[in-house]
């Protein structure tokens, strides 16, 4: 059985090798499966790239793992979850994402969820959607304070592997969800890890840094981020609270209204795009670790 699965894996990977080169511009007809822990993270890290791929003809499905019930200002968890769900769907629509699935885990509590359960739920969608591209939080990014992103990234990475092997979750196959190998994998994270662009200690099977121009999608990304009104109002209020508690003042947040929050979001998205573009000739970018077909086949076989 293991051998059969292995042959299947190799065959599919080789099929990928024989496929034409695959710059972002050739995203036509590709299926994207985007996994995010919370409503905002994937937009800030990958929203422009996703929008760009969709503009090129890709279709996308977003799986949001938590219900974002914690992050608000003066709202109950229930109200927060409901509002953020609606806003998350609106944001996804702005980017062109056709379908949004919310798994509904309580935010900040993935540390208490069985990793296998989460992996298998993500694997379900990989087998159902049969994506060409999987976009997940990078579980190896250091100093990302929201550990839900770590748990989600780790589960997403494992789900990709498990989805390709028939001995994982036999009931899935019985229900018609056959194995699937996702050829391309993007890891995303906000740029808090100082070593995020350093080469790994070994280049074998190590994803490579990839910076993608989002100049044409920047406005769309800003609007998608601004759609997350509850989270960003909360962010603005927390910044204001901290600033004022230390005897300072941030003029932009003298009055925290929609215009001020939207401006704050635009500044945030703009600076992140600038940081991601560092080291390139690009003005605005997003940065990933990318594991494409080359990642999956050692150089000696590719020759």
């Amino acid at each position, binding site marked *: 059985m293991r051998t059969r699965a292995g042959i299947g894996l190799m065959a599919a990977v080789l099929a990928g090798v024989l496929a034409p080169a695959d710059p972002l511009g050739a995203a036509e007809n590709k299926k994207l499966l985007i996994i995010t822990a919370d409503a905002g993270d994937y937009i800030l890290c990958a929203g422009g790239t996703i929008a760009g791929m969709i503009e090129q003809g890709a279709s996308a499905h977003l799986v949001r793992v938590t219900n974002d019930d914690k992050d608000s200002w003066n709202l109950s968890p229930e109200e927060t979850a409901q509002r953020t769900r609606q806003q998350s769907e609106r944001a996804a629509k702005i980017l062109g994402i056709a379908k949004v699935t919310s798994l509904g885990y309580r935010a900040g509590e993935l540390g208490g969820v069985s990793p296998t359960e989460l992996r298998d739920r993500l694997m379900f969608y990989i087998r159902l959607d049969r994506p060409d591209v999987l976009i997940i939080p990078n579980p190896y990014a250091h100093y990302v304070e929201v550990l839900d992103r770590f748990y989600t990234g780790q589960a997403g990475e494992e789900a990709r592997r498990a989805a390709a092997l028939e001995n994982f979750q036999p009931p899935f196959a019985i229900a018609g969800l056959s194995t699937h190998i996702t050829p391309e994998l993007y890891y995303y994270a906000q740029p*808090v890890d100082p070593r995020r662009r350093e080469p790994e200690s070994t280049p074998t099977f190590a994803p490579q840094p990839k910076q993608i121009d989002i100049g044409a999608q920047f406005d769309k990304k800003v609007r998608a981020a601004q759609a997350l009104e509850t989270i960003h109002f909360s962010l603005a209020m927390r910044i204001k609270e*901290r600033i004022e508690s230390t005897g300072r003042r941030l003029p932009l947040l003298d009055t925290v209204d929609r215009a001020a929050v939207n401006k704050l979001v635009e500044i945030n998205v703009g600076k992140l795009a600038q940081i991601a573009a560092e080291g390139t000739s690009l003005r605005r970018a997003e940065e990933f670790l990318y594991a494409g077909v080359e990642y999956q086949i050692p150089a000696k076989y590719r020759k």
Partner: protein
Amino acid sequence: MKLHLLVTAAAALSAAPLPRGKIPPGKVVLVIQAHHDDHTTDYGMGGLIARLVDSGFEAWFVRASNDEKDGSHGYPHNDMINRRESEEATRILGMKGVHSLNWRNDYMDSIPILELRAQLILLIRRYRPDVVLGHDPWGHYDRNPDHRKVAWALAEASWMAGLANVHPEHLESGLKPHRVPCLFFKARVDYGRGHEPNVAIELNQDQVRRKMRAYSAHRNVYASPAMARAVRQQLAAEGLRIDEIEDMTDEQAAVAFEEWYMEWISRKRGRENGLTFAEVYWFVDEFDHLPGLKSYIESAARGPQ
């Protein structure tokens, strides 16, 4: 070629002195660690704690485990002795006291992280620290399960304590949400690539002295007279002597060795960073979690800080 240059540049940078860390503004520091001695180990944080206290901070130590395994007296005795010595070490450093959570020592891998995190969130809301000190949750190769667990719980508790929808029951007791603005993380710098300090904290002679004494206060686990005897035998076998320990008992000599070691490591970290004495940390500043807004806030905010 490009890659080679990058790697060379990175290596050169890693050898460069670290920026000199500042003591953040504030009044309260919580030191949250797994074990009775983790606030005084050679790789931190006794010197920094002493410096924070000297800067006017009220300092509290949260010990997550019961330390029953550490020492040679059997479980309940170790627990009691280690707690007492931990209290003595905090006194030497000028701290206010120790809160023990009493999770079973070296068995913390399997405890529910959300339960531990809830305890830390409660304590953070109670003390409202401006600074928290702990193990680096991203450090590599730390074999100690308790270090890992507490570091991870702390990493989330430090910001989740600021959200009213996290453990809303706390608010009913009068506590309020509080996000920890600044963190110092420590880990062994010789344990692989995971922990890369970004600041060197300068220490003065007296802070190093207190660090040395706080460390050697843990007699149950350090400063073993047998170690001093072994060193004496080794020296004798090689025809060497250390004048300073000639008139000391083995117990006194063992304490002296431990304290010299702490001075040596503080001096070494200082020398590496252009200072006389230092400790090195990964420092997280108040807006580091917002890489897209940090520089804007710093440039646009008006007033002191």
